[in-house]
């Protein structure tokens, strides 16, 4: 089974600085790492490959530095990695990103399953997975916490939702995004990391992908950020005094006053 895993390189530090004027991440000079939710997608991809004797190809869009994260993915056990990099991609929103990924997946050849993490820890939109499926014209299931059955033409997955679990059968090829409950990602092996250092990681630019620079990057991104701000929390709290009985009476009175009961 040919599996594609899409990853994103994000700031590695937990304590990141936010530009107080623009409200965006001040990412300059920060160490970067694979987006942690993507590690679950990568692990699941490697497990599928090990079960089916298939192949895992990892894709990312980013600057030359993102090559490090792709090599790390090879260290974990991916077979191939491709960096999608072009100055024209800068400033791409989720729509343009999905467009670039879809073009790259089509160019990379025949595929059965595309795996994504639930969302990135910097943008936190969770939109790329479904948009990518749409761009590829294939089905999509979100929030997968277990792959129940892996068939030749379809896949049965468990989907976590607020109401409970859904067992869904999806035709292949298709796209899923996974939640952290799906597995415990392995630690890479030393030999794998050494292989990864020497691995060839090709770079595909807009021209090689046959992408019109006008439809990607800032120019091709329909998303307009109107305002980014810190939310104000005007919450008030009040401690009730007295013995438990009188506190219950006071609480009931307040609930009645606010017409909560």
């Amino acid at each position, binding site marked *: 089974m040919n599996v594609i895993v899409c990853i994103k390189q994000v700031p590695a530090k937990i304590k990141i600085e936010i530009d107080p004027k623009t409200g965006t991440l001040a990412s300059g000079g920060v160490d970067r790492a694979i987006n942690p939710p993507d590690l679950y997608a990568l692990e699941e991809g490697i497990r599928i490959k090990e079960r089916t004797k298939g192949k895992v190809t990892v894709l990312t869009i980013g600057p030359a530095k993102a090559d490090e994260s792709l090599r790390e993915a090879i260290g974990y056990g991916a077979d191939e990695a491709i960096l999608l990099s072009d100055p024209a991609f800068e400033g791409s929103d989720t729509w343009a990103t999905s467009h670039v990924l879809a073009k790259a997946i089509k160019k990379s050849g025949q595929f059965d399953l595309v795996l994504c993490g639930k969302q990135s820890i910097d943008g936190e939109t969770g939109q790329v997975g479904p948009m990518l499926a749409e761009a590829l014209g294939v089905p999509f299931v979100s929030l997968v916490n277990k792959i129940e059955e892996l068939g030749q033409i379809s896949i049965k997955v468990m989907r976590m939702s607020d109401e409970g679990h859904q067992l869904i059968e999806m035709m292949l090829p298709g796209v899923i995004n996974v939640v952290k409950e799906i597995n415990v990602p*392995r*630690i*890479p*092996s*030393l*030999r*794998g*990391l*050494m292989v990864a*250092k020497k691995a060839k990681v090709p770079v595909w630019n807009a021209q090689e992908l046959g992408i019109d620079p006008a439809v990607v990057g800032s120019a091709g991104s329909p998303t307009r950020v109107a305002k980014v701000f810190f939310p104000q929390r005007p919450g008030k709290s009040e401690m009730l005094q007295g013995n438990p009985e009188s506190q219950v009476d006071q609480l009931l009175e307040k609930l009645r006053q606010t017409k909560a009961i």
Partner: protein
Amino acid sequence: MEYFLSEQQKTLKGLARQIAEQRILPVRAELDEREEFPWDLIKEMASSDLLRVFIPEEYDGLGGGCFDLCLVVEELSRVCGGIAISYAASALGVLPLILYGNDAQKSKYLPAVASGSRLAAFAVTEATAGSDASAIRTSARRDGDHYVLNGTKQFITNGGEAEIYTVVVMTDAAKGSRGASALVVEKGTPGFTFGKKEKKMGIRSSATRELVFRDCRVPVENLISREGMGFIVAMRTLDRSRPGVGAQALGIAQGALEAAAEYAQQRVQFGHPISTIQAVQHMLANMATELEAARALVYATARTIDAGARSFTEESAMAKLFASDMAMRVTTDAVQILAGAGYMRDYPVEKMMRDAKITQIYEGTNQVIRNAIALEVLKRKAKQG
């Protein structure tokens, strides 16, 4: 300080840190409390190739030297000295084979240790013999193509958990230390059983047990080097392994320093974090300085060994001595900085202080280590005349 590690060493160190922080950190307190041997973690280290580091390439290893092993041990010890020693003891257990074993012995035992399917252990100490290896009582009597072993080894790290034991025994008690020989004994050999599991002050997740031999028949092909070489094998093995104890001490001290610095910045007294108090700052400064000095010595020693120096008994002893004494002071000061909290088992530094103590004791107490260093100093002076 910049130690100019190679790319491969940086990768190795990073991987060891990843395992330590992601897998060991969440369970270290519980394993310490329950005195439980960390098999899951050993398997995890094995699948990441960490157990290949110290095995030569021709036996499925990565051919790393003393320095590579030190880097791994230091990173593991930064989070848990107990788990680190279970790892390092396996390296110690196969060192006699790597240094003195023949090809058949190496081919038989090293690949299994490299893959992590079998752990190793090294056994010298007995109830009457520790620093004084000539007092070993465990005997090996030649009987046809076997040795028949009788006696008990004590305080053996990885005892019971390891499959491969390199054991120093007396093949000719009349010759004293020149009558000692080193043998490989496999777990499961009839007549080889394990005594009680020790309850320890620190490194409590590691297994420490007695090895009991009662008419245990070991094939003669398990003899490492020649009869009478046991003492030499043991001494050369320890010369090579002592920087590893130094590295364990570095890691424990590093963990304690980081915990102390973090706490000092959070703990507020008299309206300010205690890190603003000069008395605390000077403690942190001394801890960091001593730690870095010890690191420089351990690393320089490991690199000396890897570069092919012929004799390094003195350097190796110094690295172990200086780093372990440093770790005891640094962990004690870390407990002092955390004060009441530091004394509580909810915080990690009291465990670090307990774990540090053993580094002053095993692979030669720091007193007998000083004797060894003094002997080298005096020998050198005597030669100069």
